[in-house]
């Protein structure tokens, strides 16, 4: 019976990644209750799609569904503006330009590792939340959820080169935000 097959597949492919699904949804929505709604909706989508799942990395497959569900959910329920890809390229270039000019000799003036190590959880969380969504997602998937570049490329649906530049920019912005003596 195909219903039983789907159930077994769901338990094997989707259920092991509920923790990752919730964590990603929590970062994207910024709210625990919203994250639970998103995960339930994503699981429903995954359950319907699991019959056609063609193999490969199950975590990346599941997180791709979660991420897409989260953005549709936000657009529907929170009137969030989802940045189009074209805009995003422009945004990234603009950010890169600002970073390059405002930092001047940024390698010399960037704060040091000891300062970074002092940042507390609240400050880190605020700084991550303030990142542009695509930068934030890339950083969360790598530095909190531990995905490798190829998995992140699959989940965020961009080439690996874009993952690399987003990740580096996200980290540099985060470092600039937390590695100051004040607060």
């Amino acid at each position, binding site marked *: 019976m195909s219903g039983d097959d789907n159930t077994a597949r*769901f338990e094997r492919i989707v259920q092991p990644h*509920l923790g990752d699904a919730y964590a990603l949804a929590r970062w994207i929505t910024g709210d625990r209750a919203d994250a639970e709604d998103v995960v339930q909706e994503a699981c429903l989508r995954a359950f319907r799609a699991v019959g056609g799942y063609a193999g490969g990395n199950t975590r990346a497959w599941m997180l791709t569904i979660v991420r897409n569900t989260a953005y549709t959910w936000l657009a529907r329920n929170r009137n969030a503006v989802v940045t189009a890809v074209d805009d995003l390229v422009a945004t990234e270039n603009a950010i890169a330009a600002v970073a*390059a000019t405002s930092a001047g000799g940024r390698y010399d003036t960037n704060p040091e*590792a000891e300062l970074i190590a002092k940042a507390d959880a609240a400050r*880190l969380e605020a700084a991550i939340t303030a990142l542009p969504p695509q930068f934030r997602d890339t950083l969360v998937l790598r530095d909190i959820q531990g995905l490798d570049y190829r998995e992140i490329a699959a989940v965020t649906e961009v080439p690996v080169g874009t993952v690399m530049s987003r990740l*580096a920019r996200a980290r540099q912005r985060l470092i600039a935000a937390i590695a100051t003596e004040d607060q």
Partner: protein
Amino acid sequence: MTGPMTADTHDNDDRTTLLVHAYVDGELDPANAIAIEQCMASEPALAAERARVEALRQVLRERLPREAEPLALRAKVRRAVGLTRQRAQPTWMAMAASLALAIFASSTGTWYAMQPGAGGSVPDAVIAGHLRALMAPQPADVASSDRHTVKPWFSGRIPLAPRVVDLVQDGFPLIGGRVDVVNRMPVPSLVYGRRQHLISLTAVPNASLGSTTSQTVQGYNMIAWIAEGMTYWAVSDLNLEELQMFARLFRAAPS
């Protein structure tokens, strides 16, 4: 993943920076890894970037570990997808309501005996902890199936963290942990699951028990044993055979 590297132009600087990040992430093939190591050795700016990235990753690992999903999420998902019939797996609310009714219906004498620290016995206090957990919105204060999350959670709260073992392969998934009070003393309780049943495993210091015992108290099965200078009390509405199996597996598992 990448071609040969030079650092003549700003674009190449930028590219080299990306490669430092990829190096820290272990994403470079050996040839590029060696090349970037040489760049970092000769360029203090790149070495500083590496130090900052490593410091950032370290501080994120320590301060913002992946947040565990709420305990009820798995059941909610299974219901949303239609894998669970309502009757097969009662919700916590329903369980709490039926328990509350059972307790209300029982004698005041029993209720009094379940008050911890009021001269009640250790088994009564352990059962009281288990019942309170069943009535609370969540049976565990730290909800995680990862023993490496649960054990450190205890370290900040009580002097002696319990042994936490992973028994999910044997059908006893770890659900989380909480702090109970026995004889006015905070003690660690681990929560394991078995189908829709919960097992509380409470570790009480200063063992004074002769040997392994099992008993039935107020309809709950209890098994107690001594290990590492503590008395471990397993309590559940699970049948005695499976609770004994749980105790055997827990004692045999490497920590």
